[in-house]
């Protein structure tokens, strides 16, 4: 790694969260960013933006997280958020087979349309729902909790699918995507793979830590955190220079930038 100054400098990494509606994208991010659930999740219009630092042994990675809206019609807006992203977390719900299909579609799309070096992590959320041992603990809802949502496996309020398996809080009952199946798919496509629970906090930190480790930081254009003022200024100057070069004699336009 080309990390000559591992002490303070944070490397910025743009990360985008994708996945079907109600798989728990926002919950994962909240768990990671605040290590908690927020009763009143800020509504996702297009995408919510959050940041969080992740400390590794030799460096600090600052994640800039775009938590995209899961509603199908916002799909066409997603490219705006995943362009230039260095990492993507594609989330599915292990209690809903269809959500893995959607996740696969996202992976395909990312592999074709996004940054070619993008690190993709496939995350099966709601692990708490299928762990018999954690049955008791699993009584906090996963997705932005509804007031009346006391029954943990009852995720049906988040999606239209009928919830027959949810009725039984038995051990592996609600699981619809096996660990092996998803793992095999992830390996085949070269994805990082985790099963996690935003609710219980299981594996959430690991997802982001592993991404931070995996990202080839030397390929990311260093976003200046502290010492970059110069850099930025020169960029601004360059832009200003461009502008005045384009409309010569339009000096007032250039002046405007500096005086308002």
């Amino acid at each position, binding site marked *: 790694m080309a990390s000559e100054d591992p002490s303070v400098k944070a490397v910025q990494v743009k990360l985008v969260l994708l996945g079907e509606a109600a798989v728990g994208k926002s919950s994962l991010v909240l768990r990671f960013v605040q290590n908690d659930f927020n*009763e*009143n999740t800020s509504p996702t*219009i297009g995408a919510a933006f959050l940041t969080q630092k992740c400390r590794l042994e030799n460096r600090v990675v600052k994640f800039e997280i775009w938590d995209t809206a899961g509603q199908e*019609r916002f799909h066409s*807006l997603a490219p705006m958020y995943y362009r230039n992203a260095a990492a993507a977390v594609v989330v599915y719900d292990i209690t809903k087979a269809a959500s893995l*299909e959607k996740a696969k579609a996202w992976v395909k799309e990312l592999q074709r349309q996004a940054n070619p070096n993008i690190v993709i992590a496939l995350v099966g959320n709601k692990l708490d729902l299928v762990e018999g041992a954690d049955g008791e603990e699993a009584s906090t809802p996963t997705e*932005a909790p509804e007031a009346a949502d006391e029954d943990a496996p009852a995720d049906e309020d988040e999606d239209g699918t009928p919830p027959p398996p949810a009725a039984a809080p038995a051990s592996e009952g609600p699981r619809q995507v096996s660990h092996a199946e998803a793992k095999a798919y992830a390996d085949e496509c070269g994805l990082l793979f985790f099963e996690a629970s935003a609710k219980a906090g299981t594996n959430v930190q690991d997802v982001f830590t592993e991404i931070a480790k995996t990202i080839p930081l030397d390929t990311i254009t260093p976003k200046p955190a502290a010492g970059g003022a110069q850099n930025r200024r020169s960029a601004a100057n360059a832009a*200003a220079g461009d502008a005045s070069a384009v409309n010569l004699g339009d000096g007032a*336009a250039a002046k405007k*930038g500096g005086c308002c």
Partner: protein
Amino acid sequence: MSLPMHLRAYTEKTKDELTRDLFNAPFPDQLPAPSEPPVVTKPARGAKGAIGSAAGLSSMDIIAVLSVEGKEDVYAGKLSLLPPFLCFVSNDRRSCRCTLPLYTIRRVERLNSRAGVFALSLATWHGMRIILQLTSLLPTAEHFAILLRDALKSQLAEMKVLKTFLPSLYSEYLLNSGSSTPNAEASLVDMPLEGEGDLRGPGGEGRGTYERGLGETFGFPGDARKMRERSKMKLWKEYFVIHGRNMTLLRYPPFQRLLQVGLPSRLRGELWEVMSGSVYLRFANPQTYSLLLSENAGKSSQSTDEIEKDLNRSLPEYKAYQTDEGLARLRRVLVAYSFRNPELGYCQALNIVVAGLLIYMSEEQAFWLLEVLCDRILPGYYSPSMEGTLLDQRVFESLVKRCLPMIHDHFRSVDVQISVASLPWFLSLYINSLPLIFAFRIVDCVLAMGAKVLFQIGLAILKINGEALLEVTDDGMFISLMRSYFSTIGDSAHPTHPDPRVRNITNFQELLVVAFREFNVITDETITSERRRLRAIIADEIEKFSKRAAVRNLRNVGRFNKEQVGIIYDHYFAAVCSPEAGSGAVTPAGPGELEQPRIAVDAQGRVETRIDLRTFKVLLSGIATWAREETITTNAFMQRTERRIADHEMIDRLFFMWDSQKLGTLSLQDVVMGLDRVMSADLLESIEWFFELHDKDADGYLTKDEVIRLSESLLFIFRNEPGDIYLAAVSRFILNAYEFGDATAPESSLPDPQDSVPMDGDEQTASQSRERSNSQAGPHNLPYLSLATFRMVVLADELLESFFGHDLPASFQLEDTQEEDYHKTHAKPDGLLGGLVNLVVNDENKSRFNRFADGIGSALGKHAEWRKPAISKADQNAPVPIDTRARESLLTPSQRQRVRSASSASQLSVQSNKTSASASTTNTANDSRTLADVEMRYREESEMVRAAQEAVMHRPNFAIDAIGDSDGEDEGGEDDVMDEVEAFLKAHGGDEDNALKGAEKKAAEDLLTAEPMGAPPSSSRRSTGDLVDL
């Protein structure tokens, strides 16, 4: 997979529609008469032709001068009769405006005035007297008066409803609570004083039956004192007395000023619905909302599920949305609208918008305002493809490029999209971005002035933060910067300024001033023309995007590659949109209905477009050569091919064979798999599917009937082949089939002399093959011919063998449809060459040109027509027979003539291209006027840009007056508000109201005292007895 079909169905608004939009006047089909049954689900916006003519009422515009009793100002402008509304807008489009429902006009009289002036006096429901001088020629004015009279008559029934409707409006309560006679209001009875802590603001104690929002119970956002609610309320009350209220509200210059300082909370809901015109919908559809709720009670859908999920995320900081009552209201409005407009359903962000509306409005008020928002103010913002959002983001970017070129260039250089921040601004009307009290002031302006305000505010935000924005290097910095700006929007814009008056100017006030002064060059026309310019690009992008997604999401693409699947998608889409496939409009049909191209929801809750049989025929005609009738016409100039859709039972069979889920419709996946099977089939596979196609009960045997059907299918495919070798082959096939069939058929189906039935039904088609064996009269519905036997029969014939082995698979051809450029070629009037071509070649003059050319061709004896055969082995494009020698002898003399002229035609075709090109040039001359228009518009726009840039450069210091920010709202508070008002007035640039001066004004004043004429029947109207009070 659902197709963005509405993008193709899009048509620019007509002049009538634009006028109605200007006045926020709904269309007559949205306004059922009280006697009509209520319309619950949204009427399809297809029957535009019927507008106005439905009730036999016509619209008319006329030049007029308007004045009001009690006001000095007189305005010249345009008066529009848009039944059931009478609308006026002053020439500057800003100073004076009104939209009067005809049912609020009690009386119209023609005034007796000096010769030559045709003047009408209107008495409104609220006792206001409006004088209109129709300054056109007398006959025109008289005609207008007649139309007005007819339109007024048709609204008598509505007038009765008005009486019961009005109490739902707060302004009625406000003005009637103090005294009973409206005129005494002028004395301005002091409004009841609230206790110090009343967050609801002044103006009532919750009495009265008016519609009210959650704020009445849970308190309105913001501090009523700081917001000067009392003073504002008093000013509005004064305004209402002179200028009318709610349904009869007239917009005079003070209106704009009162609007821009923020509407008082209690009046806000009513003014929102009056300004946006949604009140007319609520008036005309009194039962719709409750019916929607009761009819759909307990139903769940994808939308209701999504709504449920978002309820808790909708302005959770506002108290009411932490209670069941608040959430229940929000749920009901969103659910009702999702059933009202199932095509739109529910879109995230609507929860925020509606949560905002419900603070100030009742459920029903919010519901109708939501309809106006989705239909007119923010068209396409929340639709399933969100094309309006994408389009307006692109428009915004282009405006940034024009008005703030440095910011635009910088963002481009660091590769940051402005939309990452601005998208939620537009989608949630800033409600999600700014603190509520400020966001609602923007909503006030949007509802009064239209979507341009969103752009003006957005540009102002960027401009004010210009310097910091030039330091931004990535998305994250941009978002953080915007967030910190919004969080300080209520702070002083100049905290260190020595003058306290300047210090008191908040960031928000500065924002409004910049938005409305510096960016007032952004007009409705700017937005409309930018949308028009960019729409095609956006539509193309959406289509390409959905195509990519649709292709990618196919579970199985068979042996096709991606390009081929793409072509299949294009054909599929083209078929769905084609006029032959029925209405282009998507009607989300219930599960029982078999509508045209329809939307179905799959197991995962995704919306899917499927095609029915009729559409399938269109699709297949684009792919299979035998599924279309192609007529090739040659004349002296050119050769052209006309395609029509063929119809045969075989196509129906194919449809049902491909319908894997037996739904009666095909998905794209079904079509891909179906085509995969037939196109990549080898000899044996072709034989097999063709056999299965006719084996209805799939028992592995064809019955005798089915053998006949199969041979009919073959004959159908061969119908246009020249010569009779195919006919002979089919005849041989039938003979052999029966011969082998008898030998191999299962015991049960052996000929039984008893029930020998003649095959009448098949006689006419089968008559083509005279040689058919008549000896095989046996039961026709018993298993007879097995696949193996069928195969043997086919392989016995060389021609059939080559047909199944090669020609049949090859008859399915995936030609590029050039669908991708659909929008660009259609909507690029600015591109010089493309524009020319489009102007010249439209469908109408193309067919006229063709007919003309045919005429010349036949005059020259060079006109010829023939059917293109489905299987042309030698050359796909030329009708050359397979075996010329064998065929030649069979041709009739006239056919020979045709073949010859065909070859001469192909020689001519090069020449004809030239000819048609020169023909185009002649047409160009006729269209040069249109081009000049285009150029002129362009020049106008670039001048506007220049003006905008200049405004940006020479931005003087703010001339905003100080606003005393003392907490106690003393007597001086009113003046303070007016100071603020004046500041806006000044800031707004147009201080003079463009009112008429001098002689014209004098004339108008004279009219106020003029006597009514002897009530000539053409223009006066005596309304229902009890309402007349003059």
